[in-house]
């Protein structure tokens, strides 16, 4: 009991002591001076919570799988920090045809697969065939939609042809890791998902798989055939699977694990304080990540939607004739709800300062982000009440709950059970909306039920969830009318103006033109408010201070693993023991 009270006191203390926002000082990579002598060797131990499902780029979905794939495989080119240019990888150069219909890639001729087989243009063509094969169902298939063909001109030259001239032609072409044709062409696409290759991959990346012990460790060794001579610098990278968060953090503190990604903001504050006070060698690193959280309002009436579907009405008829939601069908109500929420307080409470405000659809990490384009609904409960009154919502019976035509303003707000952050947000939203006379009931649901049933059926009132964004803006699956019946478009938002702007932005000839349309989209959506954007999260990670030259930025943490190294005088037992 005494111990529990002590733990409670500690929690309360850390809660209050973590209100200060420290993140600014960890936003930049701590690079060693260029003239430093880089020493090879050493071991990096990365703690991960879940076992990767596969190390085959065709089937990898989890972050841990993708991270390992980044180490084992290579792309033709990698996107630069500015999210505009590209750094050559398996392709040493490329040129775009004068009519903008083709890109010719000149491949490196010194690349070998980790089994010794030379890498050629046949691998690039084969990879494209796998990417577009519907049986494989690669999750990046949409990137290849504008590519009409990929042909090998010779062993080191490959030509991508496109249907239309888009700004994204190069990024579409280089999306996806290149696969070994000499291994995978012997496996039928139907059997790829269960093939042995998924756990014994052969790539061209800086590291190669050495062993995978189920639910324990995945060990990668330096690829001695790596095409960038003298790299990688580390001898091995071990992924240690530790499902329990408490255990994972303790192993980080104890030095048994060197790197952990996606640390909870509260735990991250303790790491910052220890680092700042010189009590720990664990360096906190944070950067604007890829995730944002929001409240999604159901803008259509679930019952009329269900009835239309049951009646077998044509999709267009449903889209145009559907009844608006009795609560959230009105833009003014959605605006009022947004103004009634102190989003900054929500952001700081649940993220301990490790987030930035978000007011519109464009992610702040993207070049097309322009905060000035968003309409910002500042916290203003009085104005919220005024908006609601204009829509007929007043407390006519004096029960402290707004009502209209005898119907009280009550609704359920759903979120994923087990996601403590969203559960906290739901509770705060409940309290803040109660202050203006709206009764909210939070409901925490199992993910399969939430995403697999209620959201696709548009059978909900409001939901608190988050999205992970890509490095190019694409809002069509969320808001374009062509995706109205897909699971991601659950708000039922429909706007001809939005459809027009979305198509113009995608087909714009240059970045400046596209920016104009993205600004208009931001203005339109931040006004229409199918979502109330809550905040944009910072990624919180930590790495042992002996690892140098780790470049982390909005692309993530694994930008240059081949460059990471450890000075000799900072090496530890784990760096030396494997040298035996």
């Amino acid at each position: 009991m005494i111990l529990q009270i002590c733990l409670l006191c500690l929690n309360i203390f850390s809660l209050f002591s973590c209100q200060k926002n420290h993140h600014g000082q960890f936003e930049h990579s701590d690079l060693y001076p260029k003239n430093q002598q880089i020493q090879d060797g050493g071991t990096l131990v990365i703690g991960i919570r879940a076992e990767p499902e596969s190390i085959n780029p065709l089937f990898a979905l989890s972050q841990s799988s993708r991270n390992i794939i980044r180490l084992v495989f290579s792309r033709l080119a990698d996107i630069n920090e500015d999210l505009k240019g590209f750094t050559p990888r398996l392709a040493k150069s490329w040129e775009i045809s004068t009519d903008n219909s083709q890109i010719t890639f000149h491949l490196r001729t010194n690349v070998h697969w980790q089994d010794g087989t030379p890498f050629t243009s046949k691998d690039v063509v084969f990879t494209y065939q796998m990417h577009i094969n519907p049986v494989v169902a690669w999750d990046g298939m949409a990137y290849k939609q504008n590519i009409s063909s990929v042909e090998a001109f010779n062993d080191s030259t490959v030509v991508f042809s496109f249907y239309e001239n888009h700004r994204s032609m190069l990024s579409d072409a280089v999306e996806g890791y290149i696969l070994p044709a000499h291994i995978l062409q012997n496996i039928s696409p139907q059997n790829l998902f269960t093939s042995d290759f998924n756990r014994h991959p052969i790539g061209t990346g800086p590291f190669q798989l050495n062993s995978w012990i189920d639910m324990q460790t995945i060990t990668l060794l330096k690829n001695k055939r790596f095409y960038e001579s003298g790299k990688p610098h580390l001898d091995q990278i071990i992924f240690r699977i530790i499902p329990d968060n408490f255990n994972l953090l303790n192993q980080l503190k104890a030095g048994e694990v060197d790197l952990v990604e996606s640390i909870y903001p509260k735990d991250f504050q303790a790491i910052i304080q220890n680092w700042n006070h010189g009590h720990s060698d664990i360096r906190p690193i944070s950067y604007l990540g890829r995730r944002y959280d929001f409240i999604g309002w159901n803008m259509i009436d679930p019952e009329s939607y269900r009835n239309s579907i049951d009646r077998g009405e044509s999709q267009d008829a449903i889209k145009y004739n559907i009844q608006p939601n009795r609560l959230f069908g009105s833009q003014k109500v959605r605006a009022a709800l947004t103004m009634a929420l102190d989003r900054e307080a929500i952001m700081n409470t649940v993220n301990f300062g490790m987030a930035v405000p978000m007011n519109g659809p464009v992610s702040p990490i993207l070049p097309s982000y322009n905060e000035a384009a968003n309409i910002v609904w500042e916290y203003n409960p009085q104005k919220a009440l005024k908006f609601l009154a204009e829509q007929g919502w007043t407390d006519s019976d004096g029960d402290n709950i707004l009502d209209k035509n005898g119907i009280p303003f009550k609704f359920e707000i759903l979120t994923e059970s087990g996601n403590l952050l969203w559960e906290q947000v739901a509770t705060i939203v409940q309290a803040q909306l109660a202050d203006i006379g709206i009764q909210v009931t939070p409901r925490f649901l199992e993910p399969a039920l939430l995403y697999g049933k209620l959201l696709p059926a548009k059978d909900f009132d409001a939901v608190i969830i988050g999205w992970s964004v890509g490095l190019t803006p694409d809002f069509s699956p969320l808001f374009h009318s062509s995706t109205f019946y897909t699971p991601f478009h659950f708000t039922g938002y429909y706007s001809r103006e939005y459809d027009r702007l979305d198509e113009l932005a995608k087909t714009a000839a240059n970045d400046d033109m596209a920016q104009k349309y993205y600004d208009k989209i931001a203005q339109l959506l931040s006004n229409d408010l199918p979502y109330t954007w809550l905040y944009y999260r910072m990624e919180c990670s930590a790495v042992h201070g002996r690892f140098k030259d780790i470049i982390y930025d909005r692309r993530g943490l694994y930008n240059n693993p081949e460059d990471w190294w450890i000075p000799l005088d900072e090496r530890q037992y784990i760096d030396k023991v494997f040298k035996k």
Partner: protein
Amino acid sequence: MLNGIIRRILSAIPTLLVGITLCFLIIHLAPGNPATRFLNPSQTAATQEIIRERFGLNQSLPIQYFHWLKQVLFHFDFGYSFYNGKDCTEVLISALGPTIILSFWALVFALSVGISLGIFTALRADTHVDRVINSTMMIFLSTPAFWLGLMFIGLFTIHLNWLPGSHLHSLYYDQLDSFGQLLDSVRHLILPVFTLGLPLAATVFKYIRAGMIDALQSDYTLAARARGIRQSTILWKYSLKNSLLPLVSLLGVIIPALLSGAVIVEVVFALPGVGRAMVTAVFGRDYPILMAGASLAFFIVILFNIVADIFYRILDPRIRNSAGGL
């Protein structure tokens, strides 16, 4: 007796089938869809259908069930994991080793601690020592395994730095000599075995202590004393033998409890056992792994109940000689 055993085994088969069928229905009828995990914003309806087809989810539930049952009964094939495409039988076989090791040592620990403390306190019933041990064991009995595990990690791993708090081996296990490897494995097993074994030890303790107190106060003990039989003989030959009898049927319950306890312990201590594989499968809606694990659990529970019945019959002449028997 052989007829009785065969009858008992035959009667267990329908129980197993009904249990597995119910489990199949519960898992498949739960709202949600395992294919949801593969959804992405740019996916077409056709691609979603291909993914459903890949896992056989496009078929009706009865067809899915009979197909699964046929594969299991005739080919011992539990299918492939929805999560990673691995053969479910391989997943379970590789996970079974750590679970058996953990459960075996936890059982050994629970029996040795439970029995010895049970006897010790029964002989000192209602003394201060008895009350202290009894209360301590009741605390372990009512403590959730995950909390106990975390406390052990906090104390022995973080504060004292005596024992590792996760995994079966150290990272540098392969670099150690044979003795070093043995020591490393033992060090890694101590905390999980304590966490899993202590609540069970408390259960065993409770049974043994009560049984021993009963036996020590019984008429046959009094008669044995009156005949001048030595106290140690009375204790070991008569009282203990009788108080151990309920433990046999208790083992039929303890073994499944070990398996369910292992789920928590394996997650907290990052051990690669069946429990952890099942937890991952539950969160990932990995039906084939869940069904394979559930089938294994049903089989183990039924098997150990049969074994307990048989042993009970062998050890207790009253049941052996009764008309009903097995």
